[in-house]
């Protein structure tokens, strides 16, 4: 097995700026940089993490522990301040489903747009299109503008596109709360299928029951530090003891 995701000494600080205008910035510079124009916040602190291909890993932690930030570094949306992140193969982020959806386009057009955003080629989308529609259970509404979709339909279609992108590394952020019970079960089955097929899975979720069913390994973050890395049951227990 080779390494799919390698995170070394990753540090990330957020600068919480209070100003958005050039005028305020210049005034601040001219007045001798007095006062706080910005506040720093350590989102990730010396994070080391190595994930092998085919592993299913849950990133756990309370709100603000840095798990979503870590996921954004793995997907490439954010770049580290120091340290490094490296990945192997195509990484598809499901960081909030439907981010690339547009309300004024039909379901069909959104499938193509979203598929391409998630890194699929035209041929791949053509090939997967029927399967995407079938999985989403949208049926005849595929040519209706998505603004007329119910929120459940919307999420089902978005999720369906995402699970058909077929990446090597699959990043999942709080998206399992989609649709009704039967659809959720279907999503879970699909995710398990992906992991059985040797895909690497990194999941961020607050639903501890759910992650313990999907993942084998849990990484607990607290204030930007990795405080536990091991079997999922122990990770869940560790997190529960934090509360």
């Amino acid at each position, binding site marked *: 097995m080779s390494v799919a995701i390698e995170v070394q000494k990753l540090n990330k600080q957020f600068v919480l700026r209070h100003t958005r205008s050039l005028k305020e910035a210049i005034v601040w510079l001219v007045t001798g940089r007095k006062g706080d124009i910005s506040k720093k916040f350590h989102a990730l602190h010396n994070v080391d993490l190595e994930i092998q291909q085919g592993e299913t890993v849950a990133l756990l932690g309370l709100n603000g522990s840095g798990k979503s930030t870590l996921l954004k570094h793995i997907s490439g949306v954010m*770049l580290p301040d120091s340290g490094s992140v490296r990945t192997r193969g195509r990484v598809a982020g499901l960081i909030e489903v439907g981010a690339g959806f*547009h309300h004024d386009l039909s379901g069909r057009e959104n499938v193509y747009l979203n598929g391409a955003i998630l890194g699929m080629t035209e041929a791949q989308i053509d090939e997967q299109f029927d399967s995407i529609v079938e999985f989403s259970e949208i049926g005849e509404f595929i040519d209706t503008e998505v603004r007329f979709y119910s929120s459940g339909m919307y999420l089902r279609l978005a999720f369906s596109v995402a699970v058909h992108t077929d990446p090597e590394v699959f990043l999942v952020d709080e998206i399992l709360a989609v649709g009704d019970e039967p659809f959720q079960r279907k999503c879970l089955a699909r995710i398990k299928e992906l992991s059985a097929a040797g895909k690497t899975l990194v999941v961020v979720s607050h639903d501890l029951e759910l992650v313990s069913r999907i993942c084998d390994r849990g990484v607990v973050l607290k204030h930007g530090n990795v405080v536990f890395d091991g079997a999922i049951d122990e990770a869940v227990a560790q997190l529960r003891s934090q509360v």
Partner: protein
Amino acid sequence: MTTASGFSETAPLVRPGVGGGLADVFRQRFLLKLLVRKELQIRYKGSVLGLLWSYVKPGVQFLVFYIALGVFLGLEKSARNPDGLANYAVYLFSGIVLINFFTEALSNAARSIVGNGGLIKKIYLPRELFPVASVWVSAVHFIPQLIVLVVACVFAGWHPSLLQLVAAVAGFVIVAMLATGLGLLFGSANVYFRDSENIVDMLLMVATWTSPIMYSWTMVQSKLGASWYAVYQVNPITIGVEAFHYAFWLPTTDETAPMPPNLLPLWVPVGIVVSLAVLVLGQWVFRRLEGRFAQEL
């Protein structure tokens, strides 16, 4: 972007989120096409006139300028005003279509990163796609205006040479590269300081008047003198507009009107070089700033 290789065993470990700049846009042509199509589809969504607005707006603008400048201020050549410009209507319109393209392209490109913030914050994709798509959409909107221009030219007795048509293409390329370069520059700066879009609006207002769109270049030369005129002439938009005049307006006249000296051998290459330099600068600044887009948006 990590490469889309199916052979994960042999794929190397790479740093995610480190792109190849504009080259990546070329690699993601399909996504670019979809983004452009999306913009075109939603632009006039919910409006009764729809795409007709692409004709109505420049049409009204043209009429206002033509009456105010051509008739009232006497720029048009007529029996009572022999010093005016022959076929002023064509002269004016050939400049207007180009500056309209530039205005729309730059103002949308400058807003494109912030406008697509929701996506940029969540999914990694070459962010240059958004300004480039904005310029592309404007180029599509430019086409109907170009058709109107060509029809008007034909009615005015247009008989262009091949060289003149090449000049038109060069003029368009110069302005498109400039809009892309400035779009990358102001689009990325806009993430940090929203003043950027106001600067762009001001710049566009100035740009409309610092090129010989409404008036003739000879008026500038006589007021500025040779050396300052050279400064005026370095502006790529000025060169693009003059190339358009040379291609569309001049062949509808008796071709006795003076064109700026050395337009083709000197100024068009200068325009290409300046625009290319702005494009490189824009790309460089964009690359410097894009690493923090996700957290600043």
